[in-house]
């Protein structure tokens, strides 16, 4: 009698704890995209190169705070629905800019946008290498790469 009462409560809490374990397992993922535990990755990468860009962070604008983990695929930025970063910004074009990986470096190129893309203060006319932490300005949105 008492056993079933306590047992049920324990099971109920076990369910909650099981759910919390799932929450914990992707606590460190910057966005929903990066899911593997970061511990493994950091150890492996340390040996090979010091600072590689691992994520793209939106620092200003409507989407501020959004992080996208970089996995080697090109990142499309613009108002089009299928962009990696979808902007709702009157100053951004449908297909505004692209970030792509060449070798170990990320390059930004403008895809013929109306208002242009700026790397720090320079207008992007040809593909430019993006160092870590340098702001890229697209309309009202500012993004940067971080390790």
């Amino acid at each position, binding site marked *: *009698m008492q056993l*079933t*009462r*306590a047992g*049920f*409560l*324990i*099971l*109920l*809490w*076990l*369910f*909650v*704890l*099981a*759910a*919390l*374990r*799932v*929450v*914990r*397992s*992707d606590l460190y993922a910057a*966005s*929903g*995209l*990066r*899911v*593997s*535990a970061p511990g*493994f*990755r950091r150890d*492996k*990468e340390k040996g090979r190169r010091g600072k*590689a860009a*691992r994520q793209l962070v939106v620092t200003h604008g*409507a*989407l501020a*705070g*959004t992080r*996208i983990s970089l*996995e*080697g*695929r090109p990142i499309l930025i613009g108002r089009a*629905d*299928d962009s*990696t*970063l*979808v902007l*709702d910004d009157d100053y951004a074009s449908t297909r505004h800019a692209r970030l792509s*990986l*060449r*070798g*170990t*470096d990320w390059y930004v190129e403008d895809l013929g946008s109306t208002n242009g893309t700026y790397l720090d203060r320079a207008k992007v006319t040809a593909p430019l290498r993006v160092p870590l932490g340098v702001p890229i300005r697209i309309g009202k949105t500012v993004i940067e790469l971080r390790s």
Partner: protein
Amino acid sequence: MTTPVPTAGGSPGGASGPTSTAPNLQPPTRRNTELLLLAFAAFMVTLSLVLVEGNQEQAITMEVGYYGLAFLVLFGAAHLAVRRWAPYADPLILPCAALLNGLGLVMIHRIDLAKIESTLRRGKTVWEPEAPQQVVWTALGLVLFVAILLVVKNHRTLAKLGYTFGLAGLVALALPGILPAPLSRPVNGAKIWLQFGFASIQPGEFAKIMLMIFFASFLVAKRDLFTAAGRRFLGMDLPRARDLGPIIAAWLVSIGVLVLERDLGSSLLFFGIVLVMLYIATERAAWVVLGLSLFVGGCLVAYQLFSHVQIRVANWLHPLHDVYDKSLQVAQALFGLATGGLFGTGLGNGRPDLVPEAQTDYITAALGEELGFVGLAAILLLYGLLALRGLRSALAVRDSFGKLLGAGLSFAVCLQVFVVVGGVTTLIPVTGLTAPFLSKGGSSLLANYILIALLLRISDAARRPQPTSKPKRPPQPAIADQSTVMVERPS
């Protein structure tokens, strides 16, 4: 104590492999975690049913097992639909909803048993069980859940229908207040029901979701309007007076609901959601302060004008002032919770039927009595987890509309639970909302399954890897690092 605790995402096969050099790594879908948790939930529900039947001295037959199995099959079907149409959706949302819904069903059945017994003893007409009806609603809710996953392939398509949803939501919200008596009969003072002979629905529950879709798309399109700086006052940027239109419109609607439909709960919920979505869209606390002062003003006026508001406030301040009539419900709920104490009386051992409407608005009091504080805390945590995962998906999704809608939907669950449980425990006046998934009530259940389906859709969009349009080039070293190779001219 290592019962089925699923490991993180069923530890996906290739997750431990190299990552940055192998970008075609697929994130785990976590569907096996979801299935495991669903099975756990089905087990819990069956167990609780066994406990109820045992403690109520009913014969425990194989039938109980069949109910558990049917529960698992129903949610298994929903799980398969998620696997098929939203493979990267969040793995926790559906199991949490399933467990809450299952516990609610068991509690409604348990109250049925008590009511049947007490009506038999007093020689009245025998209480008609309400649990079977709720099971039908659950099945319908899951059908609707699958249908939404099937129809809404991408949540951004909803943004394009924003104004349509807004109009439909307003009509649905206003309908019961405007329609004449045979179609909308006041129940317990609130005029929020539409009667259709066989069933009655509460259109407000659906209006809530439609209006949230409208607000998300409206705020995304008109965000600048709300961030234009006005005068600075007490460290806050107050909006300009002419930008106040939308918030005043929302306030008028919520006051209209309060006056025409006499429904405090919907009014509070609606206005709360509007405020929070405005705050999320603009990040300006001024809107919340402004909205809250408007709301408090509205409440004070309503308190002066309406007797039903006065009664509720009196019941809140003095729950024991009229125990045999007006405050019977609040007082019995408090007595029930006190009887439950820390660990509860055990499922099927309490007297939750003493509280009027224990199966709808006061189901948390019934659960608190039989599961105690410990059990009720676990149930509240389940709601918290549900909202947490929704908010997390909203953070991770990459478009503003998805962010706003996801956050609004998750917050709606939180606010509703707060209003319900706060009312039952007399933290705030009772408002007459249903606890999502737990309470008896078809419309509420259907609407909440729609809400869950939308959240799963948003979380699927957030976690789904980006489709690669062109085939992967092998990574080549940077131009500067490439060595020069002498090639001999073919002669």
